[in-house]
C-alpha cells in the first residue's frame, strides 16, 4: 500500500509541477466551454421557436438537449485528451532510464502500475469535477433532471477509466511518448468507429461489433440508462488492459 501511495504522490507531483496537467486542463475546459455555449445557444433558439408551439415546448428539456449532447461531445474530446495524459507514464521513465532504477527498489510491478493508474484517474476526475459548472448553470437558468446527469457522469467516468487503461498499456510498450500517444489514440479511435459498420454487416456481426464499440455503451448512459451490460463492458476492457500492462512491464526481464 505504501509503495502505491508513494508512486501515486510522485505522479501527481509530476503532473502538477510540470505544465502537463495545466495544458491538458486548459485545452479541455476551453473546448468544453465552447461546446456548452453552442449547445446552449442552439437550445435558446429552439426555445424561442417553441414559444409559438405549445406541443413542442412541453417536450423541451434543458437536460436532454444541452447536457446529453455535451456528454457525447466530451467523449470525443477525451479521445485525444486522455492519451495526452497517459503517454508519459511509462514511456518517459523508460526513455530517461528511471525505469531501471525504479525496478531495483523493493517494489512490485502492480504497485507501480496502480500508483500511476490512480494518479492519472485523479487528474481525470479533477477534469470531470470542473465540468460540473455546466449542469449547475443549467440548474440556475432552467430546470435540471438530476438522474440523467448522474448517469451521464457515471458513463463518462467508466469511459475515461477505460481510456486511461488503454493509454497506460500503450505507454508501457514503448519508450517514445509520441508513439504511445498515437497507439492509444489509434486504438481508441478504432474501437470507436467499430460500430459504424454495424448496420451493413448483418444482424449478428453488426450486433457484435456495436457491442465491442466503445461509444455505443456511453450513449445509453447519456440517455440516463444504467445497465450492468455496459458497466461490465467497461470494467472488462479496463481489467484486460491492466493485465496486459503488467505483462508488458515484466517483459524487460525475459526480453533482455
Amino acid at each position, binding site marked *: 500500500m505504501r509503495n502505491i501511495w508513494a508512486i501515486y504522490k510522485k505522479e501527481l507531483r509530476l503532473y502538477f509541477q510540470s505544465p502537463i496537467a495545466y495544458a491538458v486542463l486548459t485545452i479541455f475546459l476551453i473546448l468544453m466551454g465552447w461546446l456548452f455555449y453552442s449547445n446552449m445557444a442552439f437550445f435558446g433558439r429552439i426555445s424561442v421557436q417553441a414559444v409559438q408551439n405549445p406541443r413542442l415546448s412541453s417536450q423541451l428539456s434543458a437536460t436532454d438537449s444541452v447536457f446529453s449532447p455535451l456528454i457525447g461531445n466530451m467523449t470525443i474530446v477525451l479521445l485525444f485528451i486522455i492519451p495526452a495524459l497517459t503517454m508519459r507514464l511509462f514511456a518517459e521513465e523508460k526513455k530517461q532510464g528511471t525505469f531501471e532504477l525504479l525496478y531495483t527498489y*523493493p517494489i512490485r510491478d502492480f504497485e507501480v502500475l496502480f500508483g500511476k493508474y490512480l494518479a492519472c484517474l485523479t487528474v481525470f476526475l479533477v477534469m470531470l469535477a470542473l465540468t460540473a459548472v455546466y449542469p449547475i448553470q443549467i440548474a440556475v437558468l432552467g430546470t435540471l433532471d438530476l438522474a440523467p446527469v448522474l448517469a451521464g457522469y457515471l458513463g463518462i467516468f467508466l469511459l475515461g477509466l477505460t481510456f486511461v487503461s488503454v493509454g497506460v498499456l500503450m505507454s508501457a510498450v514503448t519508450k517514445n511518448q509520441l508513439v504511445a500517444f498515437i497507439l492509444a489514440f489509434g486504438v481508441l479511435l478504432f474501437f470507436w468507429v467499430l460500430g459504424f459498420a454495424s448496420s451493413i454487416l448483418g444482424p449478428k456481426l453488426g450486433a457484435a461489433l456495436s457491442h465491442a464499440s466503445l461509444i455505443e455503451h456511453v450513449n445509453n448512459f447519456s440517455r440516463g440508462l444504467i445497465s450492468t451490460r455496459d458497466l461490465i463492458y467497461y470494467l472488462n476492457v479496463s481489467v484486460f488492459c491492466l493485465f496486459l500492462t503488467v505483462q508488458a512491464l515484466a517483459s524487460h*526481464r525475459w526480453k*533482455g
Partner: protein
Amino acid sequence: MIDVQNLTKFYGHVPGIQDVSFKVESGEIVGFLGPNGAGKSTTMRILTCYMPATSGTAVVSGFDVFDSPMEVRRRLGYLPENVPIYLDLTVRDYMNFVGDLKGIPRKKKKDQIEKVLPLCGIKEVMDRIIGNLSKGYRQRVGLAQALLNDPEVLILDEPTTGLDPRQILEMRDLIRDLAGNRTIILCTHILPEVSMTCSRVVIINKGRIITQDTPENLTRKLEKKSTVEVEVAGPSAEVKRKLESVPGVVAVAARDHAGAGADSTVFDVESSHDADIRRELAAAVCGGGWGLLTLRPVSMTLEDIFVQLVTEEEG
C-alpha cells in the same frame, strides 16, 4: 557478501556476459573494469535484480537475486550509469519518494535523509528542482538515493562521468569514506579511479572475466622487466653507449625530445625485473662527466596492464 557463480546472460543469441564468477568480501571496494560494452552494466543489472541471468547464480547479502529479489533490493544501493533521477522533482520530494519505496520506516526516514544529505553535500540544494541542478549535484543526488537505506552493498556504475576534476576527486574521497563495513562495487572504464580507490580489481572484456587481483599484484605479475627513466645533459650517442655498457641493462632507448631540454636527452633504460641498477647508472653518468638531471623508476600503470591484457586476449 557478493558471490557470483558462472553467470551468463544472452540477449537473444548474443551473449552479454559468459561464465562470470567472482566474490566480494564484506567491506571490500572492488573495481569492475572493462572497456565500453564489455558487460559491466549487464552484470550490475543482474546483481540489482533488474533482470535475471540466463544461467548461473548470484547471491547478494546472503539472498539469491533470482529467488528473493525483494530481500536483495532492500539491502542494496544502486547508482546506474547516467544517473536516471526524476528531473521535475525537488531534491526533498525525491528523497521522500525513494525513502518510501525503499521501505524505510517513517520515523527513521527523516533521520536518514538528514544524515545522507550533508554526507553527499546536497543539503543546501534541498528545495531546488533536480533538473535545474548542475551535473555534479545531480550525481550526488544519485549517490544520496543509493545511500538512503544504509545499504550493505553499494553498486556504483561509472559514478564520476561528467564531473569536473575537482568533483571527481571529491567523489572518490566520498566513495573511500563510505567503505567501512559496506561492500562497494565500482564499475568504470577510467583506470586511475580503480588504482586510487579499490582494493581489488576485476577486469572484464567481451563478456568474460580476464583476471582479478589487487592492483599491486597485477602490476607485479605483468611487469617482466623494470624501466628507469634517465635524463642526461650530454652528447646523446655517447651517453647511450655508456649506459648500455652498465651491467644488468637489457636495452636503452632514447626518447624523442619530448620533455627534454635543448642539450639533454631522456633515455628509457630497461633491466631485468629484480635488479636495481640505479646506483650503477648514476655512477656511469657522473663518471662520463655529464649532468644527471633525472633518475626515476617507471612502474607499469594499470593502464598498461589493462591494454596489455585486453590485447593479449584479442591476440
